[in-house]
Structures are given as structure tokens and as C-alpha cells.
């Protein structure tokens, strides 16, 4: 029986394992040192906030693995012998493999700040980071102020988490606006306002210079790039993540920032593959980045690689880019490409609508000559993935999309669609006379059908 061994029990590794099990009889072993069972990393914040217990973050009950003959080993891989196809572990006996899937994900990036080894300085990625946070910042008495460094998705999650326990948060963001490296400035500004409305001490254009220790090696304060000293008991480092591949560095597996893979997710060594956050594509798809540390891409790579492992060789060819996040109360979804003001393409233009006093907004990117929809960011509005995917595939015009906006809305029933305001604004800006088209179930459920 073929031995498939997967290092890492995150979404990429587990998706691969599940799909290999569905399509083959191979012996599957998943090795992870983090937790005995797969859990949803994105849900760790809800455990700290008390919405759930850790048990709730596990998508499958514990009996699932044995029933589906997926062997689980909780151990740390020390070394890979690519010649003999063997893995050496910390505690258990070596494990042999025919095929090896490396899905070890990321680790927080620390940028060699003075004092970063102090107690109370931590990232937020692993299960153990959650346990650490519970110890470092259980409440506002122990942690009178926290400083979060890094204006990205994990940073705002950490700020929200601490805020839920009434711990005052100072949020250092290097850019002029929150997440400006990804969002058009107008969107980033909306989020600035929302963050401020929660009483977060948001410091834009500010970086961390130094972390200062106090008694017993604990954090006492941070020094910012403005030379301001901020007293705090917790420093959350959320300045991005990097592939978690240290243990591979002394093997013949080719690395750059991540593990280099071709479009079949194969490394330079036959029978060894890499997927998820730790993989770096040598043949990137469209505007995508070589390393995409996103839940969805991890899952898609797992789905794709399982086909190859099971004899149906398949290239990793993700469809239209999509992503989502939630910033305090504001839900965000994106489909296609909406580039920042700096990185906007030559032909790319943006149409922007924002609710007069609520954090609800739409930014649509379109081709300035053809009016074709290139991508859309929505805040406080849910859109239907299938419909947006179809619109992007069919190169629909922005005119068409806004007129058929009702087909795309995915907010709960009886929600305000804002379609009237949106169209009025569009018509005013572009001197057009678009009228809303009634929602069509046929179009919604068969977006590729040509029927009227």
C-alpha cells in the first residue's frame, strides 16, 4: 500500500488527506506537533473572546480520523531524508513515505527588534499563541495596556480580541492608513474610522523601534518611531507571516522564501510536494503572488494535489481571486482584483460608493475603456460568490453588474439592499441612466445559463 505522509494538520494538509482518502486506498499519516486534531486557525480569536470553546474550532469530531483511516501522529519532524524517503521525529520512531506532502504553514515574522525575546511579546498564529495570550493578557488588571504592531488582518483581530476583554489597545500601523498595502485608500480610511470608533488608540505612520523590559524579563514599554514611550504589558507582533520551513533548510529540497513548487505543486524532489502557506509558486497564476498565506488557497491546493496523488495529474489553477475578513463589526469580501491606488493598473479605474453614516461601502474596479468589471470590494455587504465568479468569467460590464446588483446580494432576507442609492450615485457620477433589473432566480442559481 502506498504510504502518503503529510506534515502539518492545517487546512491544506487536512484537505489533501480527506480528498486522498475519498479517491484512494493509500495509507495516510498526518504529523503535527501543534495539536492532536485539526482545528480552524481562523477561529482562535473566538475562543479568547468567549464566543466558543477550543473544542468548537474542530471541524470534525475526534472519531472521524480513525473511521476514515487517517493516521494522526503528534510529533515534531526534525529531519527529512529525501534519499531513503524517511522522516525523523522528536519522540517517535522514523516514518517512511512514498509520497510526502509538506503543509507546515507559516510562522509570525519578527524583525529583530531589540527586546523581542521578552516575556509578553508574542505573535498570534499557533494554538500555543492563544494559550500564551490567555496567560499574558487574561484581563485588564493583569494587562493594563497592550500594543499591537502591524496593520494587517491578524493585527486587527488581536486588537478586537483584547478590546473584548476591555484591555486598552494601542495599534501601531506603519502605513498612512490601516491595510493600505492591500486596499484602496478610501476603503482603508473607512476602516481607520471604524477602528477609532471602538476606542482603539490607532497610530498611523508609526513603527516599533524597541521593546523595553522591566522586572523578571517582562515587557514594560515600547518605544515607537516617534520616540514615544508607551507603557504596556503585552506586545502583539502581527507584522505578517513567513513560511514555516526551518527544518527543511538542510535538505536538497529547493527553497526560496518558501518551498519552491511548480504548477503541479511538486518540489524539485520526486514524490515530495508542498501546499498551503509554505509553498512558493514558480509559475504564478495571473496577478496572484507566489506565496499566498490564505485559508482558501491552502484548501484549493489540498483539493488539487489530492487529484495528482490519486493518479489524476492536475495543475494548480485557481479561479478568480476572492477573499474575506471581518474588522470588528465590518464584514469585508472581495472578488477579482481591486488594486491599491499605488498599484492600480494602467487601465484600472475605481467607482466608489459609501453609506453617508454607516460603515457600508463598495469599491468596484473596472476597465476604463471597456467598462468591464475587474473586481469589487464590499464592506458591510455580502455578495454571492457564484454570481460574482460568473460575472468576472463572462467579462460583464460594470453597468451590467450594477443594474443586476440584486442578483449578487447575499445579505439576509429583509436587509436594505442600498441598490437605489448605489445606482443614483453611479448615474450621477457617470451621467448615465441605469435602472435596477429585478432579481432573477434563474440567473442566481444558474449564473452561466444563457436563458433570459
Amino acid at each position, binding site marked *: 500500500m502506498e504510504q502518503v505522509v503529510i506534515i502539518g494538520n492545517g*487546512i491544506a494538509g487536512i484537505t489533501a488527506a480527506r480528498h486522498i482518502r*475519498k479517491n484512494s486506498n493509500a495509507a495516510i499519516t498526518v504529523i503535527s506537533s501543534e495539536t492532536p486534531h485539526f482545528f*480552524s486557525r*481562523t*477561529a482562535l480569536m*473566538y475562543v479568547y*473572546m*468567549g*464566543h*466558543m*470553546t477550543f473544542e*468548537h*474550532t*474542530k*471541524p470534525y*469530531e475526534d472519531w472521524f480520523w480513525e473511521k476514515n483511516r487517517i493516521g494522526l501522529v503528534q510529533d515534531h519532524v526534525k529531519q527529512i531524508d529525501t534519499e531513503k524517503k524517511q522522516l525523523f521525529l522528536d519522540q517517535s520512531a522514523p516514518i517512511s513515505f512514498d509520497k510526502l506532502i509538506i503543509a507546515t504553514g507559516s510562522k509570525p515574522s519578527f524583525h529583530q527588534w531589540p527586546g523581542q525575546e521578552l516575556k509578553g511579546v508574542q505573535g498570534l498564529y499557533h494554538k500555543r499563541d492563544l494559550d500564551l495570550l490567555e496567560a499574558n493578557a487574561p484581563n485588564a488588571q493583569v494587562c493594563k495596556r497592550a500594543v499591537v504592531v502591524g496593520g494587517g488582518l491578524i493585527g486587527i483581530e488581536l486588537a478586537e480580541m483584547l478590546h*473584548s476583554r476591555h484591555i486598552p489597545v494601542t495599534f501601531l500601523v506603519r502605513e498612512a492608513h490601516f491595510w493600505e498595502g492591500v486596499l484602496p485608500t478610501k476603503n482603508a480610511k473607512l476602516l481607520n474610522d471604524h477602528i477609532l*470608533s*471602538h476606542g482603539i488608540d490607532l497610530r498611523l505612520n508609526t513603527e516599533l523601534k524597541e521593546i523595553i523590559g522591566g522586572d523578571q524579563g517582562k515587557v514594560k514599554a515600547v518605544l515607537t518611531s516617534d520616540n514615544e514611550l508607551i507603557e504596556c504589558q503585552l506586545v502583539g507582533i502581527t507584522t505578517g507571516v513567513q513560511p514555516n520551513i526551518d527544518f527543511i533548510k538542510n535538505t536538497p529540497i529547493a527553497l526560496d522564501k518558501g518551498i519552491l513548487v511548480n504548477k503541479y505543486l511538486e518540489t524539485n524532489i520526486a514524490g515530495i510536494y508542498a501546499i498551503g502557506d509554505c509553498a512558493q509558486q514558480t509559475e504564478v497564476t495571473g496577478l496572484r503572488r507566489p506565496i499566498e498565506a490564505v*485559508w*482558501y488557497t491552502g*484548501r*484549493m491546493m489540498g*483539493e*488539487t494535489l489530492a*487529484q495528482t496523488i490519486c493518479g489524476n495529474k*492536475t*495543475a*494548480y*489553477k*485557481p*479561479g*478568480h481571486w*476572492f477573499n*474575506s*475578513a*471581518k474588522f*470588528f*463589526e465590518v*464584514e469585508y*469580501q472581495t472578488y477579482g482584483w481591486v488594486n491599491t491606488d499605488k498599484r492600480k493598473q494602467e487601465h484600472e479605474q475605481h467607482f466608489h460608493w459609501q453609506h453617508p453614516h454607516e460603515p457600508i461601502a463598495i469599491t468596484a474596479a473596472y476597465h476604463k475603456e471597456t467598462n468591464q468589471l475587474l473586481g469589487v470590494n464590499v464592506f458591510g455587504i*455580502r*455578495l*454571492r*460568490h*457564484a454570481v460574482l*465568479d460568473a460575472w468576472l*468569467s463572462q467579462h460583464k460590464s460594470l453597468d451590467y453588474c450594477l443594474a443586476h446588483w440584486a442578483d449578487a446580494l*447575499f*445579505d*439576509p*432576507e*429583509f*436587509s*436594505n439592499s442600498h441598490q437605489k442609492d448605489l445606482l443614483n450615485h453611479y448615474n450621477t457620477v457617470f451621467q448615465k441612466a441605469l435602472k435596477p433589473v429585478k432579481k432573477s*432566480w*434563474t440567473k*442566481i*442559481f*444558474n449564473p452561466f445559463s444563457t436563458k433570459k
Partner: protein
Amino acid sequence: MKQLQQLGIVLFLLGIFTFSSAIFMGTFSPTKAQLTALMTEKGISSKVFESKAVAALTNSSFNNIHSLKNALSAVVLKTNDDHRAAAKKKGISKEARKEAYGNIIYSAPKDLAFILGKASAKGLVAENSLLFFWLSFGLGIFGALLFIVPQVITEGPKGIKNNGIYKQNSTNRGFIAWGVFAYLIGFYLVLYFAPQYTIHWTLMLDPLSYALNGGPASQWFVYGFMYCVIMVVMAIRMYIKYRHVNYQILRTTSVLFFQIVFAFLIPEIMTRLQLPATDFKNAFPLDYDFFFSWNLNKLIDSGGLGLFILVWGILLTLVVVPVMVYFFGKRWYCSWVCGCGGLAETLGDPYRQHSSKSLFSWKVERWLVHGVLVFAVLMTAATLYSFFTGNTSLVGIKTQSIQNTYSFLIGAIFAGVIGTGFYPIFGNRVWCRFGCPLAAYLGFVQRFKSRFRITTNGGQCISCGNCSTYCEMGIDVRAYAQKGENIVRSSCVGCGVCSAVCPRGVLKLEQGPESGRINPTEILLGNDVSLIDLLNKK
């Protein structure tokens, strides 16, 4: 703001304390006139009872309702012994034997104690019932609102706020939750099995009862009134908590309307007009005694309106309910109209996370809920058989005893004591999920012939588990969402909270064409289009 809320809790607890201690208060000194009135009301003709009761009850003052009930029990026991002995005496005439049997008292002593106790109650509460109404109900309502309303500000801007639910004693099965559990169970046991303890509560509500139905309050009037009040107070909490989701606001308003108007006001007013009181929205088999002979006889005897109620009741179950479920899913009933659902969605909302999501629970659920449905149908079949043929038993089992078993086990214990008492520990839909025969029936329609589904939004799920955690029906919503598959489950009551708590906009309750409603998916949207097509159509 915090002090205000703390004051609210104190006032609320004071109200609960007054309400609860009313059980043990008062003295009871029945007079002969009150005894005569009791006999008239209950149709008791026995002279033996009268003389024994006058001797045992009228010259003494009872310090609590318990001893009055015991004294009454003893009198009833002795009276019946006498009559039974008389009936069994040899050599007496047929008429005398018949009379002796006719004198046996079948009324339960607890019901007699309720009537006599209420008529003869004296003491602080009985003499100041209006004051105590305000000290119990009034303080309870005011205190609860004082705690709830400031949440508009203390909980921050509108949006899902489940912060700390699993850190708090009251919502995480701590001792407060167990206390509420015990209190609710105690309350239901009193309500169903020891109504004599509700005398003071009924005295507090008598003015309202007279105003509405023209008669004194029974324990069921107290229950109906409390049901409405609790739903109103907790609906205000719902309005605040879910003020960013119109679906929740409309749904809450709807259950509130149907409870207050259909379940409470209309039946009370019909009683006042001496019409057969009925809850027009209560559908068989949830309304399990609809076909009991006393109800059928009552309806048939009350002319046009009675006949209308009979026809409407049958139509409701056979036509209206399934047709509506076809178009809207069972949510139109379970979480927009139903009284049990209404309480679960208001009072029960803080506990919705406690429903078990395990596969094992799902198995138990299917056996139990369908078992109750079968039980209800068999019981009704036997009932109708007896009604039309006049035979009191079917295959050797007395119809009456089937009915009594169902009423006790399902109607009182399961729906009431367990149904609500279990909220703080096992979640707010224990009855709806494991016991309600109507839910089982609607479930069949919803699963096999309906336009309703919860659509999963392509590949957007991040498996966080908020949806599963907050599903009150114990559906593992995430198991479907993370596979890109729509949720089409017979048990879903369509409360919409999975959609509300989802941080990524993955779930939407909606009705659409039947084709494609069930969509098992191998590869999720977002991946290679040709791969999706290849594998999903295989």
C-alpha cells in the same frame, strides 16, 4: 451604566423572591359557604363529604396550603371509602348502589385545594394582591429591563456580540445556570402537578383575568400571562442584540404578535363571549388533544363557530402547514408563529449554544422525534376510533389510558418540564428538536418537498464554527458550509442565527427553485473551473 444594570439585577431578584415566596404565604380558613360553592363547582353531591369536610375544615385555620390539601385529601379518601363500602353492601337496591357509586369523588384533591384555598386565603398577599403584583411581576419586569436596555450602549456598536458567553457562569453551565435549571423545573412541576401552590399568583392576576375573560385567574391564566411578559422582555433583548439584522427583528415581532394575540388574548376574549376558546395557530399534532372527544363534542355543540374551528384545525394541519412549508420552509411556523418556538427564541436565546452537535445526538433526535410523532398519530387513531365506534378500548388498551400517558409524558413532562427547564443546560430547543411531533411532520415536508434551503456562499467558508456553535437545533452547519453544500435539514427551524453570526457572509436563508437545492460538492468554488466541473458532475 454598570451600576444601573446591577441595580436591575437586584430588583429582578427581589421580584423573583417575592413571586416565589408567595407560594408559602397566607392562612386558609374555609367557611361552610365556600365549601358549598366548591361542591357546586365540582358537582360533588355527597352528603358524607359535606359533613366530614365541615367538621374537618371549617372550624380550623390552616397555616399553609399544604396542610389544607392534606386535610382535604383525608376527607376525600374517607368519603370514598364510605361510598365504596356502601355500594358493595349486600342486599341493597339497584338505585341505592347506583347512588353510592355516583357519590364517589373523582376530582383530584389538589384541584379541590386550589378552589377552596383560593376562596379562603387570608394574609398579607391575599389582602394586598395588587401591591404584590407590583412587587413580584412589576419589580421583575422593571429590573430585567434595567439590566437589558443599557446593553444598547454597554455592548458597543450594533453587530454580533457573543463576547464572554463561554466565560460566564450563567451562559456556560455554571452554578447560576444550574440554579435557573432547577428553578424552571420546579416552576413547571408546580404548574402541572401542584396547582394549589399557585393560589397567590392567581390572586395577583385576578383583576386582569376578570377584565379579559370575565372570570377568576387559573394557574393557566398565570402561565399565559407570564409567557407573554417574559417573551416581551426577552424580545427587547433580542431587538437590541440583533438590531443590525432585519430578519431577526421581524421574526421576533412575529412570534411576539402570535403569542400575545393568538395564544393569549383571543382565547381569553372568546371565553368572555362564552365561545369555545381556541388558539387558532396551534396545529395538531402539537395540539395533541384537538381530536379528544371532549374537544370534538365541545366544538360540535357550539354551532357555527365550533364547526369552523374544527374545519380550520383539520385544514391547518393537512393543507396550510405543508403548503406553507413548501414555499417558506418550516421556519414560517417554528420560528415565526409557534409559541414554544417563541419562548425558545426569546427567553432561550442566551442558551442556544448548548445544543449538542454530535452525530450521536442527531441519531437520538431522529429516533425520539419520529417516535413521538408515531405515538401521537397512534393515540389519535385510537381516540377517533373510540369517538366514532363508542368502544372505549382498542386491542385491549383503554383509549383513555393512552391519552393519559401521552398527556403526562409528552404534554407535561417533555414539552413543559424538560422543554423549558432544560434551556440553561441543554439548549433552548430540546422539545422542538427531540419531542415535537409537529416539527417532525414539518421536517418531512421541508426535507423532501420544499423551496427552502440555507445557501452556502461558494468557497467563502473558513470553518470557524460560529454557525454550528450557535445553531439551537444542533445542526453541524459548518459540516455543510465548509463543503460548499447547501443546508437542507429537516430539523432546521430557520431562526437565521447561523447567518447572523457568520463572520464571512457564507450563509443565507432563502427559497428558490427546487432544482439544485441539494448540491453535494466535491471541489469548492474558487478553484480551477474545469476541475470543479469534472469532479462535481461525476
